[in-house]
């Protein structure tokens, strides 16, 4: 009786290991390249940075283990403190790109002859390299010949040296960064506005909603996905700010416009930088700040998925 079904038994043994586990294994096979690259280019360097931050190393000679000494030194480093504060300023003021982008998108979301040209013109700064943006703005801000002071002079305001004044320089650079970033948010909102449901607007109209109320209660809730993406790219953009600082002030005047990424570069990789361990410690702090946002993004995406 046990041998009643030999065909099944033989078929089972004929099927290979892969065939038997196909359902479970295939997703992993497809994920494997991504996981491999992610591990190699993201996870491993993070681990390495953390490891290096416990060493005193000039990048060329022998590394010397110093424990937490790099972090202890950071606590007492006024340049680090300045960079950290500047990072927060960037995070806060860079977010102005979101309402700015929304405003321009609403403004451009109409059918007029040639609107495509206007849209492309508004989008133009985002296509420019950050280096070009930085150069243009540093000329704009020039203390004597710059356009800004020309305009200020017309209305009788004294000349200001935006990039040479330690209290103003960071805001000046952020303003330059807002130019392309606003364009980016604008394009996100423009696509978002295409997806706004006309029926809901119609229904709102019937209920006598217009102006700000229409915007706040009908339009903006429907733009939530666009707002989320705009928020993510703006936060990431703020934390990655480097090119503009490097071009416009080179971290100066006397280091007052540095942010963590720039300070890390200066300490570890620049002309006079020979302190890989110290640079890595700064990188770890920056990573922790980013981690807060990454966790928030992941959490909000996850709860979005779960809500469906």
């Amino acid at each position: 009786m046990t041998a009643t079904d030999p065909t099944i038994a033989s078929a089972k043994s004929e099927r290979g290991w892969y065939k038997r586990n196909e359902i479970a294994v295939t997703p992993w096979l497809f994920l494997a390249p991504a996981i491999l690259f992610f591990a190699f280019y993201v996870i491993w360097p993070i681990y390495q940075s953390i490891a290096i931050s416990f060493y005193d190393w000039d990048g060329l000679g022998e590394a010397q283990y110093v424990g937490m000494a790099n972090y202890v030194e950071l606590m007492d480093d006024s340049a680090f403190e300045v960079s950290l504060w500047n990072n927060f300023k960037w995070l806060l003021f860079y977010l102005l790109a979101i309402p700015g982008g929304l405003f321009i998108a609403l403004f451009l979301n109409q059918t007029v002859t040639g609107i495509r040209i206007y849209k492309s013109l508004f989008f133009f700064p985002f296509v420019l390299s950050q280096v070009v943006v930085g150069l243009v703005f540093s000329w704009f801000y020039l203390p004597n010949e710059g356009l800004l002071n020309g305009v200020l002079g017309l209305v009788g305001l004294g000349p200001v040296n935006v990039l040479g004044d330690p209290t103003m320089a960071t805001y000046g650079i952020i303003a330059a960064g807002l130019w392309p970033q606003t364009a980016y948010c604008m394009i996100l909102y423009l696509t978002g506005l295409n997806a706004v449901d006309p029926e809901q607007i119609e229904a709102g109209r019937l209920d006598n909603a217009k102006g700000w109320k229409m915007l706040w209660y009908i339009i903006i809730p429907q733009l939530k996905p666009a707002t989320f993406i705009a928020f993510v790219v703006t936060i990431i953009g703020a934390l990655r700010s480097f090119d503009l600082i490097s071009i416009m002030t080179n971290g100066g005047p006397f280091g007052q416009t540095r942010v963590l990424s720039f300070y890390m570069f200066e300490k570890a990789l620049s002309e006079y930088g020979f302190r890989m361990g110290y640079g890595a410690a700064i990188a770890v702090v920056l990573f922790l700040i980013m981690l807060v946002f990454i966790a928030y993004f992941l959490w909000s995406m996850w709860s979005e998925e779960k809500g469906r």
Partner: protein
Amino acid sequence: MRFTTKSMLMALAGSTMLAGAASAELTGELKIFLDTSNPAPRATMEKMIADFGAEHPGLEISTTVIDREAYKTQIRNFLTADSPDVATWYAANRMTPYVSAGLFEDVSDLWAEPEIAENLASTKGAMTIDGKQWGVPYTYYQWGIYYRKDIYEELGLNEPANFDEMKSNCQAIIDSGRKCYTIGTKFLWTAGGWFDYLNMRTHGFDFHMELAQGNVKWTDDRVKETFANWRQLIDMGAFVDNHQNYSWQESLPFIVNGEAAAILKGNFAVAPLREAGLDDSKLDFYQFPAINPNVELAEDAPTDTFHIPANASNKEAAREFLRFVVSANVQTEINNGANLGQLPVNAGSAVDDDKFLNEGFTMLSENSPGGVAQFFDRDFPAEMAAEAMQGLQEFMVFPDNLDDILARLEKVQDRVYK
């Protein structure tokens, strides 16, 4: 008899052919990395390398010119990873990190050859670390004050001989609605030049070196005296406004347009100033005047160098190239006014008949008894120099922050020279 003469001639021809063959035997690739990215030096170097290539047709020479500022960071990568056979760099302390990491080839053998030993003796010290030589110099240049002769004549001023005259000249220039000195401190090192001179003139070369080596504290009263002298100039309004916004190149229009009367700079400033239209009737040079009459005058004269990376693949050709670069004729050629416009390192070379080169050469050989420094960021350890130059810039903008700056520098000093 005829036969023997002929055979001797043949033998002679054979031996010269052999010698010719020996030097033409250099084959393979020779990769040269240069930081001479400014137009004039770049053309000079390319011409010189082409000449070298013509002498050695078997060599396949490739030249990479990297932006001078970017080069300073890239050198760390290419010395370890993808090493060229010859690379430019700077003398003295700036070599230390690469020498101690074993990335520069010891070229003491070249310095033992009589041709180099006899003619390059004056720069040997700047190339020596731990009793060995790690490269060869190819040029050096004086620093000093380049000024607008026509403005000085217009105001009836003479080249100052001491600090009081320097200040009274400056006051006259300010009264005429100009600034005395242009400077662009965006990249910080230009302020280091002013500190070098003010410190060496106030307390002398030896004191300056003691500070560079960390034997004198930044909070020392003598250092404060140097800053007090500097402050006199700052408080007069001697320097152009907003200098923290400009690179040194961007600071040149002030002197070209006559808004500033002078600049403290190395001789490399002459080429762009001439190009901008300042001929010898408008541009002149004087040595930084004495401040404390009791100290001997000392000068900054940075030396630029060629090195063979330890990981180079064609060291034989690289050595031949180094010999070529320092040879008397090449030195005369590349340093003349039409090319680098600087001073040749080979004692057998001729200094070009150029007003500024002659004045500089005379100054360095006859009127610099105190000694010759390399430059602030070459004499001080890199990390100390970086922090200090930032402090110098801050001091020039906010002189009142001095105590704070010096306290900060002392903290850095404690860490750097441990």
